[in-house]
């Protein structure tokens, strides 16, 4: 068996262990806990909100613009991670580079703020 597959064997063993442990705990619990089923207990749990109406509900359009802004700025973080890994080696040069990068991002945020996109009404 190659090294590569052996590493995956480890993963498979971990996965199997997870199933065995969880199964054992749940099985043990079902032996000792009281059993009183009711209608309320089999409803879908949705963060405390009663699940009524169709599951294709429309959400407020206002969320959309925040979601978009979040996606933009969130994804730009992929350029910060590689920089952070080698922060010390880059030294002052790296710091200046990142300040410029973040300044341009901040300009985008300032734009959104000034144009009133961040206001919730």
């Amino acid at each position, binding site marked *: 068996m190659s090294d590569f597959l052996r590493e995956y064997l480890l993963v498979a063993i971990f996965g199997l262990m997870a199933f065995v442990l969880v199964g054992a705990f749940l099985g043990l619990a079902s032996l000792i806990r009281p059993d009183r089923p009711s209608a309320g207990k089999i409803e879908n749990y949705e963060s405390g909100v009663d699940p009524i109406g169709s599951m294709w509900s429309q959400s407020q359009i206002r969320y959309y613009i925040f979601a*978009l802004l979040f*996606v*933009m700025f969130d*994804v*730009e973080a992929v*350029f910060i991670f590689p920089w952070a890994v080698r922060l010390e080696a880059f030294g002052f040069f790296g710091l200046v580079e990142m300040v410029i990068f973040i300044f341009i991002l901040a300009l985008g945020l300032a734009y959104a703020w000034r144009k009133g996109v961040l206001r919730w009404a």
Partner: protein
Amino acid sequence: MLLNQFLGLAAILFCIGVYGVLTRRNGVMVLMSIELILNAVNINLVAFGAYQGDVGGQVFALFVIAVAAAEVGVGLAIVLLIYRNRRSIDVSEADLLQG
């Protein structure tokens, strides 16, 4: 090193994406199909990069991810604009202009 499996996965994703772009009529679904193609590209780049021990592929993939986010942001904004004006995002209904 399993290179062919990654390339095969990417090729399948690519084909699903192209099929989706050509058959779907919903603007958002077309965008999602294009995302599939871009992810196929990312798999290719990272697999090739790892295979050759070169970081260039991963750097390329990072740029693809960042640019894809911008593309989708703009794309969704335009689809939303269309929805606001005509209450539908069916691409085949956009036929005011006939090439």
